[in-house]
């Protein structure tokens, strides 16, 4: 079992390294499409700098951004996976190792004492979400979530009477208030659910996990995604807030059923440097990275 645990730790460390140093291919291609769409020289220079930075980081194996974020693990764990209760500890060990090896900037701070743990771990850090699925393997997504893009997060406990009108207003106002701070062109995640925590959790998954260019399987949600993305881009904030056609690379909605008396709307942003990597790990300790990166 110890050997298997070591292999799982090694898998997690590699996921972290890939996520932090190499931009996912879907994000890189979305930035390239944004460059084709922009004609203002200022907007174009921002996008060119982002693309060049992504190529340099991949070639040199260095973190894309000096803010290497808060570590998030999204795990789909098989019923028969052998290390179920050890996942949290192994994830934390991997983050400590990656902090030295990649390296990552230490970002975990005790909110009561103001002390930085120095190794990117602490109470609830890394954040680990586990979903149980059939099988005996494990699927993992690691995301490094930057602080600048987390600050403009919004939650509205909307009037059920206003419904989708409240969704639209919450999203557009959140983007306008965020301005250049979350490093646009960003990805907007929208969550709708019964509770505030649920809406924000779904919004975070929508922003970070959904591939760019994908549409929600529900046709009504998909149509709303397209309409809202178009309206967000009509605001004209543009690359890095200098004005332009492309404010958001994508807008994704995830929803859960609400309560008759509530209509919670969460909005979560990812900066253009969307750092995620995914992979699979088998019960025999074999693993591979499944996401594509530049």
């Amino acid at each position: 079992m110890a050997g298997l645990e070591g292999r799982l730790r090694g898998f997690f460390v590699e996921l972290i390294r890939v996520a932090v140093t190499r931009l996912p291919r879907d994000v890189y291609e979305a930035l390239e499409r944004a460059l084709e769409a922009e004609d203002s020289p200022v907007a174009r220079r921002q996008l060119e700098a982002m693309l060049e930075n992504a190529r340099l980081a991949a070639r040199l194996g260095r973190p894309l951004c000096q803010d290497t974020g808060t570590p998030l693990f999204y795990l789909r764990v098989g019923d028969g996976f052998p290390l179920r209760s050890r996942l949290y500890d192994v994830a934390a060990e991997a983050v400590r190792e990656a902090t030295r090896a990649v390296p990552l900037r230490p970002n975990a701070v005790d909110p009561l004492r103001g002390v930085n743990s120095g190794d990117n771990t602490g109470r609830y850090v890394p954040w680990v979400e586990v979903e149980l699925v059939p099988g005996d393997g494990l699927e993992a997504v690691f995301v490094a979530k930057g602080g600048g893009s987390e600050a403009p997060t919004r939650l509205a406990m909307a009037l059920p009477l206003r419904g989708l009108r409240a969704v639209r207003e919450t999203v557009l106002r959140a983007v306008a208030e965020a301005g250049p701070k979350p490093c646009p062109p960003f990805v907007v995640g929208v969550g709708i659910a019964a509770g505030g925590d649920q809406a924000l959790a779904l919004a975070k998954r929508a922003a970070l996990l959904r591939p760019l260019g994908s549409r929600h399987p529900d046709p009504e949600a998909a149509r709303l995604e397209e309409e809202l993305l178009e309206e967000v881009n009509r605001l004209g904030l543009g690359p890095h807030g200098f004005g332009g056609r492309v404010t958001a690379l994508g807008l994704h909605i995830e929803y859960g059923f609400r309560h008759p008396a509530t209509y919670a709307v969460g909005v979560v942003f990812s900066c253009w440097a969307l750092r995620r990597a995914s992979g699979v790990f088998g019960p025999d300790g074999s693993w591979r990275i499944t996401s594509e990166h530049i």
Partner: protein
Amino acid sequence: MSRVYRLSTPLSGDEVRRLEAGDTVYLSGLVFTARDAAHRRIIEILESGGELPFPTRGLAVYHAGPVARRRGDGGWEILAAGPTTSARMEPVEPDFIRLTGVRMVIGKGGMGPGTAEACRRYGAVYAVFTGGAAVLAAQAVEKVEAVYWLEELGMAEAVWLLRVRDFGPLTVVIDTWGRNLYDEVMARVRERLEELLGGTGDSGRGS
């Protein structure tokens, strides 16, 4: 608008007054980093009549906390050095510009009216480097000339005196003429927001 300049420090007042909001600059020469703690310390020293161990006049201050690695020969290498959020320095930046004589403040996210007034009065500009482009920034560092207060302030907060070459693209956001590009873009964004929310009424999809 939106001209491209290649400039070298020390910058003269005339060079800086030629720049307008929206222009792009690639900067060469000496640049020093300073975040919250270094700003406070630099101002304290200069206000009490002391001298700084590094030059500032005509140079650029960069709001950044780099990730640096010591090389085998004892020198330093900058691995990642993207800009940090400038707004944190807004309360002290006017005094900082007055006392140090910097001609350019570089960061991200924008600064407020105090900095804009100091830029106008003392002949300086605020320019933004693309957020998150930390490796691109590090590649422009030719040499780490020196690091100051590393023991006391730590790697991110220390003052790094860097020799840079074609550091950019830097976009001028606040010029010496009172323009603030982010204020202009954000005013248009708010107008369009009100058009979108007010102009057509509800989306018609709520029923």
